[in-house]
């Protein structure tokens, strides 16, 4: 049986005994060319898994940072087709770094689910995270995606109770994305103690790797959470770098700079904790 890019990625990281660094950027933000440069430089800066946002006009689960990113991208003319093309062109140079598209269902629905999955598989997309498709709607996209060999990454949240968890994990693949706080992206930081016990509990119910995201902004936070999770997702903090940059060059420099810091920190985090333990 062939393995997927995501499986290979997590297996390699397990060997290295470190968590994955997952970066989120919105495709087309702040403009098509800068976004392309940002994307292409992520692996070298230290990203293990790329989450690429499909911009949507009404991002209900996102805080101000990613809302603004989506608007910048849409104003720059970003479309679903352009996002898929970005990935296709990235794959010409990189065949190992997994790419997961994240967003809302409507742009996929309007593109046409079958057409989208065909094009996404062809472009080299590994997984999908669609915020507004709970397991109750698995027949919409989750099950068709499996037929195209695309993972459907499920979100588990602090409100997902024991009764509901089997349903959430049912058709999940790739990895589980644990939403650290009840809220929108870019919110306040979660407490590590509560997170650690939530992740431990999740592990009892799934073999899949567990990523933690929402509210993780700094290298310190990434290190703390990376000690007990399989992946750490950073989004709004990176997107903020783009907003605060005065030029495209500065945006690229700032984003890749922060990514390097985060990467260094997740690479060292378990070593540091081993030393502490000694």
């Amino acid at each position: 049986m062939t393995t997927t890019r995501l499986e290979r990625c997590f297996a390699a990281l397990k060997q290295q005994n470190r968590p994955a660094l997952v970066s989120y950027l919105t495709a087309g933000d702040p403009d098509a060319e800068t976004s392309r440069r940002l994307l292409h430089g992520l692996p070298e800066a230290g990203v293990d898994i790329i989450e690429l946002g499909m911009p949507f006009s009404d991002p209900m689960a996102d805080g101000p940072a990613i809302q603004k990113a989506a608007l910048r991208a849409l104003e720059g003319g970003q479309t679903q087709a352009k996002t898929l093309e970005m990935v296709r062109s990235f794959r010409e140079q990189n065949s190992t770094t997994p790419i997961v598209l994240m967003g809302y269902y409507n742009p996929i629905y309007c593109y046409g689910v079958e057409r989208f999955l065909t094009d996404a598989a062809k472009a080299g997309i590994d997984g999908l995270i669609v915020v507004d498709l709970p397991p109750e709607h698995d027949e919409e996209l989750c099950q068709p995606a499996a037929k195209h060999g695309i993972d459907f990454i499920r979100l588990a949240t602090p409100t997902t109770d024991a009764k509901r968890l089997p349903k959430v994990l049912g058709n999940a693949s790739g990895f589980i994305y644990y939403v650290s706080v009840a809220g929108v992206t870019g919110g306040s930081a979660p407490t590590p103690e509560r997170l650690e016990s939530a992740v431990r509990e999740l592990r009892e119910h799934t073999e899949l790797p567990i990523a933690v995201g929402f509210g993780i902004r700094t290298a310190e936070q990434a290190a703390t959470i990376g000690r007990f999770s399989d992946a750490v997702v950073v989004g709004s903090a990176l997107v903020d770098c783009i907003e605060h940059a005065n030029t495209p060059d500065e945006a690229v420099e700032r984003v890749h700079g922060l990514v390097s810091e985060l990467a260094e920190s997740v690479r060292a985090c378990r070593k540091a904790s081993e030393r502490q333990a000694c």
Partner: protein
Amino acid sequence: MNQFVNLPDANGLFGSFGGRFVAETLMPLILELQDEYTAAKNDPEFQRQLAYFQGDYVGRPSPLYFAERLTEHFGGASIYLKREELNHTGAHKINNCIGQVLLAKQMGKKRIIAETGAGMHGVATATVAARFGLPCVIYMGATDIERQQPNVFRMKLLGAEIVPVTSGTGTLKDAMNEALRDWVTNVDDTFYIIGTVAGPHPYPAMVRDFQAVIGHETRTQMIEKQGRLPDSLVACVGGGSNAMGLFYPFINDPAVKMIGVEAGGKGVKSGLHAASLNGGTPGVLHGNRTYLLQNEDGQITDAHSISAGLDYPGIGPEHAWLYEQGRVEYVSATDDEALEAFQICCRQEGIIPALETAHALAEVAKRAPTLPREHLMVVNLSGRGDKDMMSVAHHLGDKFGVKNR
């Protein structure tokens, strides 16, 4: 004909419309709400309380009034107005808010949030929150705050906190996005009172059921007055709660024709309108699949209407279903047609309707003259127009010697 009445199905679907397209964080709560609502429907004590507040607090039943002068004016069908504008707070919105706040109490929620466009749902929500002693936050687009100042003031008087929403275009859809963001952040203690027959299941069915008192009363009242059912029902449709409330109890009576009137803005062909059925395509937004105003890439586009309450790029999923099934006819009225009908209603009946309602009256102006006097036409007079004085003055100011600002 039972195909219409037993919906939605267990997954909240009306055909392919509706559903529960929400973030996982909200799912447990939405499932709990569904259970609570199902229980409340069959709980005599809940129903007794609901009936009590509908009667003594809201002032129900609202009259079914024979509009003799309008009937004469149009020279055709006999026109009856279902006087929802006489309800406490001046619109049909409170029917739903009373029901939802009782549920919120029952579920032990400590805080109420809502979105509002024209402000009528915001006022109704702030009202019931005050009555039940719950803190209340209303999300309202910054653009709408500008054009609906009297309602903003009313909400503040009632103790609500108004949060201006500047994201997107600062209208109803953005207010709803922001309310959803609040809800997902405060899911433990907060009850979201959605104002129309949209959102994730069970909201479309629940709001419809709370509003169906309009249609149930109309049925009884028309039988008392004329000994038979009406021939046609006309209501304006934004999200579509006043229309669903009037239509639903007649949905299995094939002889009763139903007409929903969307906001045509500058005309459906102009692209500047809020007519989701007549000028939109199916998509997924705010927790449900329905008809939406959107571009071909699935990005939601702005709605345009003189009436803030209809200025929404979607419509309740049950309307989308009834539209595709052909059970309800959906037409549109432009801003100008609504303004004309607004004035006719003021002059002929001494009733100042809401600009939303004026869209339904605009359809009456087109349809009634072609029908015989025996035709009994009921129009849902869903709200009163006091809140619209500034907008109307802006558009008609010259005619009345009011200075335009």
